[in-house]
């Protein structure tokens, strides 16, 4: 091979001749000063190559990583609340069937920055055109003031929002607020209560459960009440009919589940719109007569007297009592409204609602024992229920013989209708005083009530109450198939210095079906008037009892109580259709 000796010739002179050992010749030619530079250059290229390869490997690793490895992770997905309704500042309230009773809706509120308003008078005029209930002078004064923030109107409708927006005034602005809305309107005004403008509860359930309603942990779960809206509506309708027919000033209706103590319905008339609790004349309507008002309930107490007398063993069903003459005690005379002038058996005393007979019965008990039973039945304390409006009973501090006599037939002691319903439930459900609640509870979750009378006494009371409806003062409450039992109560309201014969408080406490009572109802009218149809009578048997019949016939299917087949000949059916 002839290669040049100077080493500069880097290539091959002729491919043909050097083909075999071309590479050898190539590298053989490196031995020289230029070869060092070349090798340095080549090594730098090599290093660059290495970097490139590393970079390539890294990129491909990242690619694979992102594409395959991260497939399971969620990355930066933001969590949407799992719950159905958006998280608002106050929990919903629903009834036992899930009907929405109270909820927050997002509304806009208009505010103004008076400093940015150039023509306050003109703007005030335009705003009053949109919101007629705003006062022109007051608004003008506010807009002319030097403040930076002034409410114009809170919780406006979308239509009003559109109109305000259309004005195009830069000084006006909107802020999102939540407003409490009650879709069922007036129907549950007393039970639910209402909130103030900042959504703090100030009455009813809204107040008593306020902390639960605003608790963030409970936002999304509604609070379920024991109230059944359909039963509430039926009660409301029946009471309204009664008020119209008997010209009464007010009415109370309660339906209670005897086993669980759940209040299925609580109506107090007159009622009010919870969206406008401060409208004129609403003060009387806001008063919850069912829970806060305390009244002398009258003859409904005779059931408690007889129950305690039987329970203590001091009397028997077969005993007889002298009701021939009224009872005189000092300057007081106790008489029957329909004197029988004969001896009465215990069932007759109850069925005919004899005051004299009841006093004779309670005399066998004595005041101390009677007081003890009243305490057991819960008549000396407010009823424990989830409402802030709970009436404390009124009774004399000195329990003397006269007190014993009068309280035996329901005068001289004032309790709320809830007290009477609860104690009656104890009489019919086997003797346990239930704990009342407005929240939906199942039978097993409720604590077992205290046993206040024996179960035999309860059985006896059920029979006696049934007899009141079959043969006694409660005949007009009979409804075929439901075997209602109950007790009428006609009490004279107290006026200054005595009782007013013309102002009555009539009530009928009932339970059905009497073989196995499920519910207790109370219907009470405030000052019902005698009518032509009632032949001039205004006692409970003429107004409260027939209204109860109407009520039970309508609510029993709703409550799942089916009518039982009856033998028609045995029921004295005096119902008019």
């Amino acid at each position, binding site marked *: 091979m002839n290669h040049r000796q100077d080493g500069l010739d880097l290539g091959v002179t002729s491919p043909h001749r050097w083909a075999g050992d071309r590479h050898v010749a190539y590298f053989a030619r490196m031995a020289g000063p230029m070869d060092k530079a070349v090798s340095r250059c080549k090594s730098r*290229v090599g290093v660059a*190559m290495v970097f*490139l*390869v590393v*970079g*390539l490997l890294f*990129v*491909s690793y*990242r*690619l694979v990583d*992102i*594409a395959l490895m991260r497939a399971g992770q969620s*990355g*930066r*997905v*933001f969590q*949407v609340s799992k719950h*159905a*309704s*958006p998280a608002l500042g106050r929990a919903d309230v629903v009834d036992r069937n899930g*009907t*929405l*009773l109270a*909820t927050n*809706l*997002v509304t806009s509120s208009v505010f103004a920055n008076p400093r940015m308003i150039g023509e306050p008078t003109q703007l005030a005029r335009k705003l009053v055109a949109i919101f007629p209930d705003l006062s022109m002078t007051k608004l003008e004064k506010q807009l002319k003031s030097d403040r930076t923030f002034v409410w114009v109107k809170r919780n406006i409708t979308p239509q009003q929002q559109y109109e305000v927006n259309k004005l195009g005034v830069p000084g006006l602005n909107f802020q999102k607020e939540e407003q409490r*809305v009650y*879709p*069922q*309107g007036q*129907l549950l005004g007393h039970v639910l209560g209402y909130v103030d403008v900042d959504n703090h509860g100030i009455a009813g359930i809204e107040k008593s459960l306020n902390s639960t309603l605003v608790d963030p942990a409970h936002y999304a779960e509604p609070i379920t009440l024991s109230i059944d*809206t*359909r039963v*509430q*509506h*039926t009660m409301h*309708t029946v009471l309204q009919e009664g008020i119209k027919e008997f010209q009464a000033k007010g009415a109370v209706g309660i339906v209670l589940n005897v086993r669980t103590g759940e209040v299925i319905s609580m109506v107090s008339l007159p009622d009010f719109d919870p969206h406008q609790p401060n409208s004129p004349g609403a003060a009387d309507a806001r008063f919850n007569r069912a829970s806060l008002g305390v009244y002398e309930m009258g003859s409904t107490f005779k059931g408690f007297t007889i129950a305690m007398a039987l329970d203590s063993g001091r009397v028997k069903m077969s005993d007889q009592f002298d009701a021939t003459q009224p009872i005189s005690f000092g300057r007081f005379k106790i008489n029957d409204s329909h004197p029988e002038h004969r001896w009465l058996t215990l069932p007759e005393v109850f069925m005919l609602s004899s005051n004299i007979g009841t006093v004779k019965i309670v005399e066998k008990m004595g005041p101390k024992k009677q007081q003890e039973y009243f305490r057991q039945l819960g008549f000396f304390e407010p009823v424990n229920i989830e409402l802030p409006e709970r009436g404390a009973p009124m009774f004399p501090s000195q329990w003397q013989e006269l007190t014993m006599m009068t309280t035996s037939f329901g005068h001289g002691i004032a309790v709320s209708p809830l007290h009477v319903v609860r104690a009656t439930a104890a009489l019919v459900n086997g003797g346990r005083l239930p704990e009342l609640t407005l929240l939906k509870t199942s039978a097993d979750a409720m604590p077992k009530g205290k046993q206040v009378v024996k179960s035999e006494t309860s059985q006896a009371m059920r*029979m006696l109450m*049934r007899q009141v409806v079959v043969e006694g003062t409660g005949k007009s409450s009979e*409804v*075929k*198939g439901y*075997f209602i039992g109950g007790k009428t109560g006609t009490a004279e309201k107290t006026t200054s210095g005595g009782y007013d014969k013309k102002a009555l408080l009539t009530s009928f406490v009932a339970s059905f079906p*009497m*073989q196995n009572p499920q519910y207790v109802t109370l219907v009470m009218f405030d000052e019902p008037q005698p009518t032509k149809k009632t032949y001039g009578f205004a006692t409970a048997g003429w107004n409260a009892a027939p209204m109860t019949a109407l009520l039970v*016939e*309508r609510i029993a*299917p709703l409550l799942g109580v*089916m*009518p*039982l*087949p*009856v*033998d*028609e000949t*045995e029921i004295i059916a005096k119902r008019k*259709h």
Partner: protein
Amino acid sequence: MRKSMIFLLLGLVVMSFLLFRVRYQVQELEEDVAHVERTIIEERESIHVLQAEWSYLTRPARLQALAEKHLGMKPATYEQLARWEDIPMLEAEPAVAEVPVPAVEPQEKTVAVVEPAPAPVVVAPAKKAPAAKPPAKIAAAKKAPVPVVRDEAATVWDALRVETSASGGHR
């Protein structure tokens, strides 16, 4: 050497291109997700408002007024309610006398008309076992059970009266 370098460089460029493409795709998807989630929230708010409106429109007072006005409905009464157990179930068909097939083809004149014995559906209390005695509250119905032919019963309750008094049935 050069070729492989070019090759590697090209590969690097392609890979980077792919990587950033994936990255931007992911970003776009995340934006889509955020958008969808915002829409979900808006829809849920709408649903909430609609639920409030639903509750308002299904107020019992309103429904009652509408039902009375347009459907002429009234509250149900005792006569319109019944329990499943009280509905009399059909008895097994009583045996019908077999119609003999004529051996000879029937002539016009000698057509034998054989009618099956009429089988009225009878409420048969005898089949029911005399069950639990009626409770103390109701006066026990002591009369003997009388089979009532259903066709002649004025209402369902009349037809059942016998059956239930015999069985004393109630829950």
